[in-house]
């Protein structure tokens, strides 16, 4: 099925906000049967209070050493982000990931660290990786995104996906209540209709295109 992608501008979501309430406010009255909402994982994480000021993180020796290894353009280049990754996944898993990444590098494979240490670590946004006023925070991935997607579906009645999309065409579907396939989501969100700058459109409404409805 073909879908139209409609970016939805919202207010700046704050820690502690009810994310289902945000979806209800902006999408509830315009949703139609068959619509699906795709919500940026970082806004879910912010609402869950998982944006942590970097000055509040005290990196240990392991984090300081390990943070020297990844690409500086990536999301775990600072000791603080590495410390939070260690807190999330545990030092043994992170070390295993680092070892695997080293081997991966030898054979020219990227992303091996996250395959071994945990996919959830790939959702960490380092310092300045999120819009102000959260730019001085390291934003962890959302907690239990599949459950969040289900809760929104139950409350608002719209199938929901929690996604991590970026400007280089990479889409990770972290939670999905149904209504659309992961493959379809990956294709639809690859151009990143929500944007990666300061667009403030953390929700994308996906509406099935119906022949003759004029929405094509």
């Amino acid at each position, binding site marked *: 099925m073909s879908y*139209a992608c*409609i*970016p*939805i*501008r*919202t*207010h700046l979501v704050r820690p502690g906000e009810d994310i289902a309430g945000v979806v209800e406010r*902006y999408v509830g*009255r*315009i*949703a*139609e049967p068959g619509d699906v909402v795709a919500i940026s994982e970082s806004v879910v994480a912010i609402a869950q209070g998982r944006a942590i000021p*970097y000055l509040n993180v005290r990196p240990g020796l392991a984090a300081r050493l390990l*943070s*020297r290894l990844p690409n*500086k*353009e990536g999301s775990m*280049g*600072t000791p603080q982000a590495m410390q939070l990754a260690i807190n999330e996944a545990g030092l043994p898993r992170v070390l295993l990931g680092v070892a695997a990444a080293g081997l991966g590098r030898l054979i020219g494979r990227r992303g091996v660290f996250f395959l071994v240490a945990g996919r959830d670590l790939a959702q960490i946004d*380092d*310092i*300045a*990786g999120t819009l*102000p006023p959260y*730019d*001085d925070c390291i934003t962890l991935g959302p907690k239990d995104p599949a459950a969040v997607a289900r809760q929104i579906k139950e409350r608002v009645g719209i199938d929901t996906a929690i996604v991590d999309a970026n400007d280089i065409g990479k889409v990770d579907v972290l939670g999905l209540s149904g209504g659309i396939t992961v493959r379809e989501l990956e294709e639809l969100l690859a151009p990143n209709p929500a944007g*990666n*700058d300061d*667009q403030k*459109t953390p929700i994308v*409404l996906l*509406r099935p*295109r119906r022949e003759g409805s*004029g*929405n*094509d």
Partner: protein
Amino acid sequence: MTEPAITNIRASITGEGAGERSRILIEATGTFRYSLTALSPTSGSIHISGAVLGAPEEDIAVDDGLISRLAIRRVGPEEAVVDIQLELPAPVEASTEPGLPFGLAVTFPRPAAYRWLAGKYILIDPGHGGRDTGGRGPINLLEKNLTLKIARQVHQYLLGYGANSTLTRASDGNVPGVRRFGPVALGRMELVLLVHLGVEKKGTRGVRTVFRTQGAHDLAAAVNSRLVRKTGFPNRGVVGDSSLPPALRRALKFRGPVPVIEIEPACISDQLDEGWLRSPVFIEKVALATVNGLRDFYAACEGKRASS
């Protein structure tokens, strides 16, 4: 079927060269009616009817050098108004984009807003290079690489607006002072822009602009003001410091006075600033703000000449 709702408003720069435009796009889940009203040469509004305002009421700072601000507000159950504030008068065009989302694009041509830069000879020096790495950030980003990224982007903008821009280096490498600043002595350079990053004590971050020659204060202030506004960074101020690279000093002696300013759009020594410097969007913002500051200065000079 629900009533159409306005779901998004955003401003962007589209096109290149003579076709470059500032564009406001208003998106909705269905068609709506609109009318444009000019309130003054630099302000106007779009009245929208037949759609509820689904997006939040908001003031949006655009600061792209032509569009200063936008504000969207609800004025009735199915009516909204978008107020537009421009920096300079510009002709407007509106067109609709059918489909879903339905879009109303309101555009303003940009090149005329930069006419003061056309034909200006500007030398841009990305600080350091080669073995001279300059400052090093907490996660080991190097000043020489970041100054190059910023300088290249400024150079591209200036060329696009018809300036005769020259880079002292276009890649990493040690460029001797004589080669860097030779164009000042030999050519018709009207401005030298040094690009650096701050290296400061812990806790200090933000924008600073240094005027390195007498009479360049206003130029530095214009650029600094733009940088602070566009980045939202703390302002470390506009300061005077007459120290110059020896080769540049010699070139200026030979050539006569040319304004020299140095931008420091961020402190590489600060972890948050260094984080921002990793972002291509931030580099783009810094470059645009710098060019807008130069434009403001030259436009003000012309205004002063005209009034005298």
